[in-house]
């Protein structure tokens, strides 16, 4: 299988607010020299505690911001070196699902409008049949097309967001904590949906989570981040069965404890 996304030695720094007049604070390195690849049809999990740089990496993959060093290649093209129009033309190929299903849909726009947005932005005609088919793919009804976000539950909203993300038939899906805000039962449904879509469409998925339990059920490959630095990377199964680093072990234990807590509840 071909390499879809090639992240090469990517570093991102944020300036820290200066506290003293003549003392120059060193920049915060949110992502530090990360190299990783996503292959077509596979899922790369990125885990790490809060502040470890997961979302920063996702924002660079989505070309919302550029790395200070390194490059992100999508199908061989450095997305941060593309012109505005070239990037716009490429955007249908990689889409994103956000954490908060209540914040990622415009309350003033109907489901149909939101799902059609990537088509319109790419200059394609928002084809009604395609939108209906996509809604069906994510388990929504045709009648939902004219309804508004506030009429849906969190899980249903996440389905709408997924419909919007796959309507252009992308090759890569970036999911930043896409199920963290959902109830446990709904979470499983959405994870299953993502896996089904992956089988159906051959999607590459970049799946970000602080929760190793979720990641273990979904991911083929794994990258463990801590303070922007890669702690471990490799096949998900290998790392989860045999964590090579104390930090990964801590994350695993925390996930198991949480899982037990949820079963008890």
């Amino acid at each position: 299988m071909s390499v879809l996304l090639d992240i090469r030695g990517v570093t991102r720094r944020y300036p820290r607010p200066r506290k003293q007049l003549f003392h120059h604070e060193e920049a915060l390195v949110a992502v530090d020299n990360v190299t990783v690849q996503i292959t077509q049809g596979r899922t790369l999990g990125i885990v790490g505690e809060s502040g470890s740089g997961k979302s920063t990496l996702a924002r660079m993959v989505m070309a919302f911001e550029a790395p200070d060093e390194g490059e992100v290649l999508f199908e061989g093209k450095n997305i941060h070196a593309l012109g505005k129009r070239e990037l716009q033309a490429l955007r249908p190929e990689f889409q994103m699902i956000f954490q908060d299903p209540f914040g990622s849909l415009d309350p003033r726009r109907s489901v149909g409008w939101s799902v059609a947005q990537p088509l319109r932005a790419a200059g394609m005609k928002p084809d009604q049949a395609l939108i209906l088919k996509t809604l069906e793919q994510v388990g929504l009804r045709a009648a939902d097309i004219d309804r508004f976000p506030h009429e849906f539950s969190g899980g249903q909203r996440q389905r709408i967001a997924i419909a919007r993300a796959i309507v252009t038939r992308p090759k890569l899906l970036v999911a930043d904590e896409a199920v963290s805000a959902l109830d446990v039962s709904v979470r499983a449904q959405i994870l299953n949906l993502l896996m089904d879509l992956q089988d159906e469409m051959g999607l590459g998925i970049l799946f970000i989570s602080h929760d190793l339990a979720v990641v273990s059920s979904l991911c083929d490959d794994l990258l463990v981040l801590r303070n922007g630095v890669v702690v471990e990377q490799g096949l998900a199964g290998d790392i989860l069965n045999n964590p090579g680093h104390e930090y990964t072990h801590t994350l695993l234990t925390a996930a198991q404890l949480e899982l037990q807590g949820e079963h008890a509840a």
Partner: protein
Amino acid sequence: MTRAINLRIGAGLVLVLTVAALLSLVWTPYDYTVLSVTQKFRPPSADHWLGTDQLGRDVVSLLMAASVNSLAVAFISVGIGGSIGTALGLTASAFGGWVETVIMRVADLGFAFPALLFAIMLAAAFGPSLTNAILAIAFINVPIFTRVARGAANQIWTRDYVLAGRAAGASQFSLTIDHVLPNISATLIVQATIEFAVAILAEAALSYLGLGAQPPMPSWGRMLNEAQTLMYLAPQLAIYPGLCIIAAVLGFGLLGDGLRDISDPRLARARA
């Protein structure tokens, strides 16, 4: 509870004013352009509900006709100033960086510039006229709406649905039109209602000073000015337009405040 009452009083006053203004376009109890020496300074009666003025014109008819002037001036000036200000605020917010800095500094300058001064300058340059008054009032609305629109828009730009739109490939312009503007419209409407009150007061003040509506166009401000010399003879002729101005300003002010309270979920939650 009191807020709901304020909103209702405000809405009631605005409704009465609007109906009176619209009605005067087709009907007033008397023709306010007809002067009559025999009918001047009449006290209130069944024929003339609020009596007649120094030229024998029916006061109710004059007040009604003048309300059109007040509303129209407020509508046009807030409309023009608000649109320009909103466009500037949205531009500042969409571009950020030095564009935002420049626009906001210019808006700050506009804030420091009193409307009255601007109206006097316009009057000095082009002669006093209602158009110049409208321009002056529109002018003061520009920086106000620039600030309000930019502040509200900056909040919307941080929302995930805007980011989702960007991921979809939408341009800054279409993100502004599709997401930002619709989601700040409630804020803008509230601000416009409040600025309506300010504009009505400003028009009255400018007309009172002779910088606004010119004779024979009826205007509350000018009625106030003309009644001034008759203060001892017929004080009611000053009181009536004064009350109208107060009612209109209060009406739009209360309505705007009430609307703001409903549209601001933080306040709504605090109330519950």
